[in-house]
């Protein structure tokens, strides 16, 4: 049914998931919130502005930083009490290392965001700072599709 669409990006956070697909007429945004899926379409004809910017995401840094600090503090506390209890501290260390790596990666390379502002709605595509090239490619691709669609509409 929707075979002609191409997945451009997935944005997942703690409370919602969003996928942006490219179609012939526009961008399909499929978002999931509170166990319900919601689809909307942003037509290329309606696009007014496309932006590309990089940021770090304060809430993400706070959440991953706090989780890493809490778990690693527990691990250090256990080892400080008794070094022979390292096996008890190990799971806390492993589960604390994952958010710590996420925190450090985000802090070092940031996040790239392509925003497509339409007349009535907008689509947001977020990429890790490690995929800067991909975000720039998508930015160029969307701009080119919008330009083509809008110039075709102006022909007499």
């Amino acid at each position: 049914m929707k075979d002609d669409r191409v997945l451009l990006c997935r944005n997942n956070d703690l409370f919602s998931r969003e996928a942006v697909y490219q179609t012939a007429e526009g961008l399909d945004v499929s978002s999931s919130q509170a166990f319900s899926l919601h689809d909307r379409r942003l037509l290329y004809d309606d696009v007014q502005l496309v932006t590309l910017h990089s940021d770090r995401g304060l809430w993400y840094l706070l959440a991953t930083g706090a989780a890493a600090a809490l778990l690693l503090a527990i691990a250090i506390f256990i080892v400080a009490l008794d070094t022979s209890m390292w096996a008890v501290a190990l799971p806390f260390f492993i589960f604390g290392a994952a958010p710590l790596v996420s925190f450090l990666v985000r802090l070092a390379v940031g996040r790239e965001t392509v925003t497509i502002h339409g007349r009535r709605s907008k689509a947001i595509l977020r990429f890790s700072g490690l995929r800067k090239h991909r975000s720039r490619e998508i930015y160029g691709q969307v701009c080119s599709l919008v330009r083509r669609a809008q110039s075709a509409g102006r022909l007499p």
Partner: protein
Amino acid sequence: MPLGPEVLHTGLMTCPYCRRTFEATLFEARDRRHEPVQVAAETPDGVATACANHPGNAASTSCRRCGLFICALCDMDVGDGSYCPSCFDRVRADGSLRGVAKRRMDYAMLARVAALLGLLPCFYGMPAALGVWWAAKGITQRRTEGVSAKGMVFVLIVAILELLTAAAFVGFMIYAIIKAPSATPAPTST
């Protein structure tokens, strides 16, 4: 805070609020101008049935839900029949028109949560049973939408395993209760 059109231009820009730089491409979305459509049709003898909403227009069909005669202007053809505008609004609002439904259940997410809760032994596999049902529906939904269903197949397998484990656990408990030695002492012969 949105930036006004007088501030925006194509190229590298600095946000006046957060002072961060960003790249922007400005487009001129064209205005849509709708011309009134002349759809009135007259039969050769001039006795066409009039549309219920537009008496000047000849009816081209009737509403599938209420039977009202409607002209081509009022005809909301959505693939599974023609509806008049008011019936279209009603059936769209109650979600019975699948072709134009914009909101639907996220069975994939429901299945994931159920499978996660099914890992807890205190629920005796009840969420796992729901997980199996929702994962099956999620696979169908994903295939219909043209999205990969591999993740849902994995969730389905996990939910089935949880369900089997829970069934074995309950079976073992029943077996243990049946085979347990009776608490009442056997009568002694004097």
